[in-house]
């Protein structure tokens, strides 16, 4: 081996490396890669969207690529002819925090082996994702509608409504382009220049393999954790111990920095985002039901001031009234299940249900899954 030969190898390597990067840039490689998936092909699809704060224990991770997330989900499988496809959209309560995959709402509803009015098998898909924000739900819904749902059940709760928090979830902030497109198309009252948005740099380097190394690594890790998912069926590290909900509450009536009780105004809430979701679903040939998610209703000290640690009574009651009004005015199908689950069936947050609590919620949902007539 001579230095000249080494220099030739180095030069060829550099040329090959630059060429690969250029091809990646000009073919928009990331959009191709993120749609490729081992899930539903080599390993079973995930029962819920990938989300993990502790990848080593949960064999799961949080990433920003919605196409990759959806490609890893069972919803990416082709729809069977006899399938009545139901998508659940919502927060961590519906995603199934502290629940094994077989105990989530979607799993329990599918296990009931329901039939639609036209006799099709009701198969329920969990497309909920932790953190409350309607815009986050709408973003997922927009991407998921390609998977031909017959019914979308959108679980909402007050903390998902504040307009000033719609861009807070990382999934929303880091999918700025898609969110801005929805804001513009549906004239949503959300500031497209919100500083929370993380804009991807548009230069060549940023779009190359080098620039995209983080999303590529996330995509690769998602595929690798697919094998662990297949071998263990685990997608969440559920600690045996947790801090149960306090039944005695502070007398503080503050909600979302509003300290003095007053009626919430429509301009404070992201009702238009719900409207966008309804329009999107209808345009995709599906039906939407909006469900006010069950919350923990405390019976302890100061229960006359607050329902739970999240919600003072005044704010939550005002929200329920506003939601009911919006549903009535816009002829949306809505279901208010706020008090459908007794307090004992909640775990570590006012919307996180135990397996039995989830079963109660599933029973309450059956009428909308199989509407008569």
């Amino acid at each position: 081996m001579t230095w000249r030969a080494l220099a030739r190898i180095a030069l060829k390597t550099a040329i090959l490396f630059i060429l690969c990067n250029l091809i990646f840039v000009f073919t928009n490689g990331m959009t191709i890669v993120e749609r490729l998936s081992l899930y539903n092909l080599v390993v079973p699809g995930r029962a819920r969207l990938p989300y993990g704060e502790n990848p080593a224990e949960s064999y799961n991770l949080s990433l920003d690529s919605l196409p990759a997330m959806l490609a890893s989900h069972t919803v990416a499988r082709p729809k069977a002819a006899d399938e009545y496809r139901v998508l659940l959209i919502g927060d961590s309560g519906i995603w199934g925090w502290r629940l094994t995959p077989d105990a989530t709402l979607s799993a329990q509803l599918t296990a009931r082996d329901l039939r639609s009015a036209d006799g099709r098998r009701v198969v329920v898909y969990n497309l909920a994702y932790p953190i409350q924000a309607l815009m986050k739900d709408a973003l997922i819904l927009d991407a998921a509608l390609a998977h031909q749902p017959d019914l979308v059940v959108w679980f909402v709760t007050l903390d998902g409504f504040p307009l000033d928090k719609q861009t807070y979830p990382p999934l929303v902030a880091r999918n700025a382009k898609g969110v801005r497109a929805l804001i513009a198309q549906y004239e949503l009252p959300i500031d497209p220049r919100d500083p929370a948005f993380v804009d991807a740099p548009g230069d060549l380097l940023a779009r190359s393999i080098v620039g995209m190394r983080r999303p590529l690594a996330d995509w690769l890790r998602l595929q690798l954790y697919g094998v662990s998912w297949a071998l263990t069926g685990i997608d969440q590290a559920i600690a045996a111990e947790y801090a149960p909900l306090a039944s005695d509450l502070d007398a503080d009536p503050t909600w979302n920095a509003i300290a003095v009780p007053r009626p919430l105004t429509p301009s404070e809430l992201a009702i238009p985002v719900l409207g966008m979701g309804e329009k999107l679903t209808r345009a995709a040939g599906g039906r939407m039901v909006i469900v006010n998610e069950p919350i923990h209703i405390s019976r302890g000290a100061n229960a006359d001031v607050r329902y739970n640690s999240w919600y003072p009574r005044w704010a939550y009651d005002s929200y329920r009234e506003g939601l009911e009004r919006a549903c009535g005015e816009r002829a949306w199908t809505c279901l208010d299940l706020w008090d459908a689950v007794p307090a004992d069936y909640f775990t570590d947050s006012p919307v996180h249900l135990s397996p039995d609590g989830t079963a109660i919620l599933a029973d309450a949902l059956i009428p909308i899954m199989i509407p008569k007539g």
Partner: protein
Amino acid sequence: MSFDLSAIAVFAAAIGAYWLLPARTRGWALLIGGGATLFLLQPRLPIRFADFVLPTGAVMLTVAGWWWTRAPNQPATRQDVLAVAILAGTVLLLALNRYLPGSARLTPSRPPDMLTLVIGIGASTLALYGVWLLTRRMVSPMARIRPLLLLIVALFALLKTEVLAIAVAGAWRGLAGQDVTIASALDLNWLGFSYLAFRIIHTLIDRTSGILPSLSLHAYAAYALFPPSLVAGPIDRADRFVKDFDALPMLARFDADRFARGGARIAMGIFKKFVIADTLSFGLSLNAVNVDQAVGTGALWLLLYGYALRLFFDFSGYSDIAIGLGIWLGVKLPENFDRPYLRTTITAFWQSWHKSLGDWARFYVFSPLTRAILRRERKPSSAVIVGIGHLATMLTIGLWHGVTVNFAIWGLWQAAGLYAHKRWSDSTRRWYRKLSETPGRKRAWTLFAWAITFHYVALGWVWFALPDVGQSIRALGRLLGIGW
């Protein structure tokens, strides 16, 4: 700094500077590099000053190893004095990091003050020297080296036995005025001690048998503290190393072939370790948690295969990196792995898996033990001798990983495999020769032998991967479809 990609990059940069030095100073640079590497790669420890004291202890053990293994009548030369001065100077210079702010420090934490350090080194040196004085007149060469040998074995036992390590860590914490209730074996995570100990033991025993060449402290310390192999081997032999070491000044400064060969090995090692092995560590290999999470027998087998592959790629990757860095430094370290999972007998597996450790154990456990038994008046049968030899060798290798029941069982498992293979091959020699006459049957047998060997080794890894006997037995049962 741990032995990660950034450490490899620092090594590579340092090696670049090494070749710019005058040729005659290369050996000295290796000596300084070895001493400094002990401190720079040493992980930060929670006991005050422990991460400085332990590397200092390693330097002292190295010097003691040389002192004890000097050839009879070998005087200390000016070069040896210079080597002591360089090693001491390296330690003391690094101790000056005490006066630097945390972000600028090269040592893992703040070193002790100079006076304490000098008193500590002085007292330890006097103690070791006193022991040497007491034993130097002994007739038996083994008796002369025994104190240092015992010290090293005792340190091994202490570090590898959790109860003892916790007790010592607790006592040390007490002396340092720290919380003794949170003492842990990890408090004594002494980087490089294992491989340093193997090298010193090799030189001590080879001195007693007279095959160790006469070594200057300069060469001995460069061998014992050779930076690339400090963390994970391979375990070189001093007589082989010194040939490369002596040739260092003669090597061409800019050698494209050396650069290419070393670079290729390092690249291969990085790929094995940081791509394949680290990928398999993403829950794709057996561990104490996922063993109870596997959804069925097939899943458990896949996790076990993942573990077997991860172990190989991790360890052989590190070996490749060490060998590559060695080539860059002008030293050809011994090969450590030679396609072990493709072997068709467990004996061949152990001749190709961690070869340098296998050779070490054969030289310093198996051979002396079997020779000692053969010297007895009433000799057991050769089968028993071989059995005892394998048992002692594999138990030593097992317990080197940690003094636990599982590692002991793993050693027994390997010894049983080696013994069974020896008995089988002795009794089927004629049959095997006949088999060669029918190539088709021989191929089928080879395939079968490979499958048996690989799965025997893989099942043995269950004991290695899991920390507890009950869990290991449950896992083995489940791998066989029992206990779901």
